[in-house]
């Protein structure tokens, strides 16, 4: 239950919007819900619908539209490499390919231990610091810029130790 785990956060989120506009809180609440498991499950959707005074269908459509929300479990961390035009001009495609090779997976797949899912994403507004990836995980989203494959692997190794 989100309400039990994050009472203060929920209060703060709702305070941002006019009281009759609770639907506005749906996006922030989804971000909150997703911290738990990396995706939004049915229970969370129902709870959020209740808080916002909308239907579960309304919540589902938000999850479906925005790419940062997920309704299925994947790796604990989602490592998302920008391969958009500006980064690609600076070798992002090759970076993604090599990183995946090192991890023994293909883009879009998850490492066998369930730790990281590696995906290509659109521009992250860090084009001057390519290669760059963001990591979606239990602590929210962080940026990792001016990356090399070694540095990326090192990051994953550190995370792996943290998890164990």
């Amino acid at each position, binding site marked *: 239950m989100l309400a039990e785990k994050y009472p203060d956060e929920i209060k703060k989120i709702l305070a941002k919007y006019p009281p009759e*506009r609770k639907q506005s809180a749906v996006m922030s609440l989804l971000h909150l819900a997703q911290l738990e498991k990396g995706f939004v499950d049915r229970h969370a959707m129902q709870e959020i619908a209740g808080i916002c005074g909308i239907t579960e269908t309304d919540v589902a459509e938000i999850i479906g539209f925005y790419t*940062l929300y997920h309704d299925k479990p994947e790796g604990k961390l989602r490592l998302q490499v920008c391969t*958009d*035009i500006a980064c690609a001009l*600076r070798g992002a495609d090759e970076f993604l390919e090599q990183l995946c090779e090192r991890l023994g997976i293909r883009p879009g797949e998850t490492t066998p231990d369930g730790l990281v899912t590696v995906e290509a994403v659109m521009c992250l*507004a860090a084009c*001057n610091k390519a290669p760059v990836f963001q990591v979606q995980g239990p602590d929210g*989203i962080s940026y990792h810029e001016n990356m090399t494959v070694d540095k990326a692997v090192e990051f994953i190794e550190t995370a792996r130790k943290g998890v164990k």
Partner: protein
Amino acid sequence: MAHLLLRHRDIPDIGKIDIYRKNGGFEALKKAVTQMKPQDVIEAVKASGLRGRGGAGFPTGVKWGFVPNTIWPHYVVANADESEPGTFKDREIMESNPFQFLEGVAIAAYAVGANTAYIYLRGEFWSVAASLDEKIADMEQAGFLGERLFGTDYSLRIYTHLGAGAYICGEETALLESIEGKRGQPRIRPPFPAVYGLYGKPTVVNNVETLTNVPLIIVNGADWYKSLGTADSAGVKIFSLSGHVNKPGNYELPFGTTYRELIYTYGGGVTDGRKVKAILSAGASSAVIVADDKALDTPMDYASVRTLGADLGSASVIVINDSVRMDWVINKTIHFFKHESCGKCTPCRDGTYWMLHLIERIERGEDVEANTKLLHTVAKQMQNKCLCPLGEFSTMAVTTAIERFPADFKASAEGGKHG
């Protein structure tokens, strides 16, 4: 010249509230709220010639003037969605010079009589939002936000709102839908947000960089601001330089700086000592400019860039050197727009999908000539029919790349970016 927007480059800790205050911070807000009528603030911004930095270049003061005083409440929304490929300036401002931006938001809110302002950040800017929340708290504590500012009747709250991965939410009406907790799909315009905006109320939407200029104008005056830049493009601009340059990054320069200066003087020249072949002047939404001498010597301002058959837009300059073929470039941009099309209107939803298939055929070397021709037709066919500019944007690079770099589409294409 000292930086006006990227001031953290000159004053390292300007992201701390006391350092910002020591350097003249919040003087503009105080002046506006205590000494100026809202209408005066609008007039000053009008007179400064400030134009929106979000892409369309609409005169900011004029936009503020559209807000009717018959419908209340009013809202101000800062557009920090920053998702155009090649654009990364707003993030630097918000991370490193946040108070100048927030001060700009506050002045804009005062000018249009809004007591609530939202900052809409793309969801990826999770940590930027967190740090802005702290800065907002700092301002509240210091009395620059909250109830009865400077002892007047004016009150203001600023809140951040995180998106969740959708380029279309940079389009202002989609952005408003998103704040309302809906799918970020653009609304039919008119009515424009200034009349029918957030929650159906009059709303001013401005880009982060636009708002960051505002305190400068209030403190130094419209004339001073107008004296910077060129006749149709007043002030300074942050150029996000990326792609094949040795020193990519944000460069704050007066309007009228040439592409050559940006790329060679500031950007350290083209990578691998190669020749610059093409320029995307406004990110992936841009027409492609043939980087000949004439283009390189064109001053970067709204009017001049137009003479190159392109737009200044958000001034996200992506440099492409001669190692790359343009079919590869538009493969990338089409992928982007196909991925980001919101799906609301037919030509964009189905047109981007169709274009993607065609460029993939071209990349596989299948019937290149016929497919190139059809691709051009499809792109043209989308133009002027879409509900919002995204669909139109998606065609810009496509049609111009095919028209301006025909040779790249003749080469027996076998994929990859290099010809």
